[in-house]
């Protein structure tokens, strides 16, 4: 087990380094923060002076190494726009993003698992058909459209929830649903087909023939086995949710990391982009690591294959 952990950790570190280098290069190659920051009537000399002062004139690899050597000591530099420590700006907005991600995941689990079990245990019937439709819709509705429709319906026409902002639970409902619906549909579809498969197995028939009730068989015997792939999907989806919150955050004016990052990219605020990418990469890599380990622990067959 420790062996696997060590192996995975080394790989995770490489991934994080690679991501930060990649982000650094892309942001640098597509725009110059100096010209975006100074007033448009600044002269060429003034732009040049500013660039020199900020160190933008050094070769890219030097700038990257300078960044890296500070970053490993926890110093991510000042955001160019905010003139404040980049990591602190990210850290400040992290709770909002985590809150939204967790809420969306809860929506997905609380809706997706019961729906999947219900529709999957009914064979070829109306619930199963309706479930398939819901799954298809949930996965194909673009999040920006869904978010705006939710706002229009439950914020404006039937004003149940506040349109934007964060702070109360009622403000969390619409963003969580908008963000979580895709994952809900994914979990539901997966579970539906898994349940269908598992319920055909011999041991289920054996359990039924012992005289156990159908409900008991479904929840006790079938669900446990059908849930296994769901763990993987949840792990993968958590990463998607964390990074995919950008659109949801913008539409619902949710003060999270995604929105800050999009603005930072627009302004070519390099230190801030770097800090954000770094933190998100660590988050996603950690989630994947935990999922992997959890899976190995849940399914002894995988452990044995090593």
């Amino acid at each position, binding site marked *: 087990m420790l062996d696997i952990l060590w192996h995975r950790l080394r790989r995770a570190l490489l991934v994080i380094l690679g991501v930060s280098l990649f982000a650094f290069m892309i942001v640098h190659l597509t725009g110059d923060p100096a010209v975006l920051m100074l*007033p448009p009537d600044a002269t060429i000399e003034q732009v040049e002076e500013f660039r020199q002062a900020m160190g933008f004139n050094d070769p890219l690899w030097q700038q990257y190494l300078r960044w890296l050597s500070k970053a490993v000591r926890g110093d991510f530099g000042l955001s160019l726009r905010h003139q404040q420590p980049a990591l602190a700006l990210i850290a400040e907005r992290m709770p909002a993003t985590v809150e939204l991600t967790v809420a969306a995941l809860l929506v997905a689990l609380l809706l997706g698992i019961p729906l999947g079990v219900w529709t999957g245990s009914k064979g070829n019937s109306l619930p199963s058909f309706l479930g398939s439709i819901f799954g298809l819709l949930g996965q194909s509705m673009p999040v920006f459209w869904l978010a705006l429709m939710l706002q229009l319906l439950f914020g404006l026409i039937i004003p149940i929830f506040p*349109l934007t902002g964060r702070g109360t639970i009622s403000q969390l409902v619409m963003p969580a649903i908008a963000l979580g619906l895709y994952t809900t549909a994914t979990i539901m579809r997966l579970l539906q087909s898994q349940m269908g498969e598992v319920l055909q197995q011999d041991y289920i028939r054996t359990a039924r023939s012992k005289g156990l009730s159908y409900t008991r068989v479904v929840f006790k015997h079938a669900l446990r086995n059908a849930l296994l792939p769901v763990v993987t999907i949840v792990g993968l989806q958590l990463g998607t949710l964390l990074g995919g919150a950008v659109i949801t955050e913008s539409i619902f004016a949710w003060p999270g990391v995604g929105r800050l990052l999009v603005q930072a990219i627009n302004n070519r605020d390099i230190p801030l982009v770097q800090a954000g990418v770094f933190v998100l990469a660590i988050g996603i890599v950690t989630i994947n690591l935990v999922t992997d380990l959890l899976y190995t622990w849940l399914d002894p067959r995988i452990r044995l294959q090593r």
Partner: protein
Amino acid sequence: MKKTVSLVACLLIATLLLIGCGGKQQEAVLVVAQGVDATMLDPGMHSETTTANVERQIFDPLLEMGANQEYEPALATSWEAVTPTTWEIRLRQGVRFHDGEELTAEDVQYTIERILDPSKNSPQASNYSAIASVEVVDDYTLRIHTKQPYPVLPARLANLRIVPKHYVEEIGDERFKREPVGTGPYKLVRWDKDEQIVLEANPDYWRGEPEIKRVVFKVIPEDASRVMALQAGQVDIAVNIPPHQVAAVNNSGKAQVLEVPSSRFLLIQFMMDNPGPLADRRVRLALNLAVDVDSIVENLLGGNATPMTQTLANLDFGYNPQLKPYGYDLERAKALLKEAGYADGFKLTFAAPTGRYMMDKEVGEAIKNQLEALGLQVELKLPEWGVYAEQIMSRKVDADLWLIGWGNSLFDAEGTLYTWFHTGQRFCYYHVDAERQRVVDELLDKARTNMDPQEREQQYQQALALIHEDIPWLLLHQQKDLYGVSKRVNWTPRSDEAIILYNAGWK
């Protein structure tokens, strides 16, 4: 089992409904919605309109632009050029910062020197580079010495908001960005990053306590969400209403759209320095004649713009009322092209930004079609703003024509003409014969340091007329800014995109 499930479901729905109905509203709080949050609340260290709109409630400038583009006293009671390079400024007495300290000339000196300090890297430093030194005469008098005669100093001072020296030195630049103290009509209560900034009225404000006691600046990035919040009555002032949403806001019964002419205009630069068709004045005129600006304004912008008549906005000092737009005349345009030897047209590339100005992409596409009707083969490029801005500012635009918006915070020809038409400047693509260029340079140089307003205005008008003859731009339109304003609020939008709230009130 089934019962449990339905019970849980019922409970869930009931809770959601209860939560939903919980919020109480309609206290006397004015909510302003902008697209992005302020980056800091230090007036000297940023150069952003949205940020300025928040901090200008907390700080006061020395003077303020009133209606009719005239300067009115604010923290300064008088300002006067005692010699061509020395301005004497008298301060209002008895003005206090939010912490109780009195405003003195030293604070003003500190404010300017702090921006000019190279170690602080203020993006505003270039705005004040004409200042040589600031001298404190007594507590309420100071002298600003400029490197040359500098007639637009009052315009600069109208954008200079004064910070308290004692306080900034005490808590440091870092904390000052988050814990501002000024002399302004409002004080900071709290700042939830990327969400809201809450301000409360300053009861000891030197103009008297503002009528609106509590103001919240909310961040709502998405246009559609901002409009919905306005329709739902959750927002009182919303910026940048998209033209196609105007009717929806006006029909909501809660709010209406107010429009105000902006000093920002759109132009298309001809790359005159490349040899080729665009070096020929007849071709440049033909392109102007082929683009129907009236139709673009009417059909794409819903009438929320006015066609440009010259290379300067009509709100700016130096504007020449004699000049007229080139007009729309496709037949004449075709004849001109033929005369210039391009009867079969030619190929050109045209670049325009996406998502930066009102309907910019659509405007770009319409112009491409209209130029194609003239017989040209047009390749349209629509880069993302960050990429585009860098190309333009570093003079590496890869196109024969490119579209850009230009706003001039000075409201003075200096800010536009010198930057775009004086030889050697960053945006100068104006290339005509050497003699004409020399005359224009000379006019702009003279006007730049001329302390006689009347003569100065004439110099700019003369330069504008010459530039107009040379046709360096494809003239487009001057924008109108659209604000959604709730019906319970009395507030007037301004041409300089500033949101000023001390004189706003409830209906």
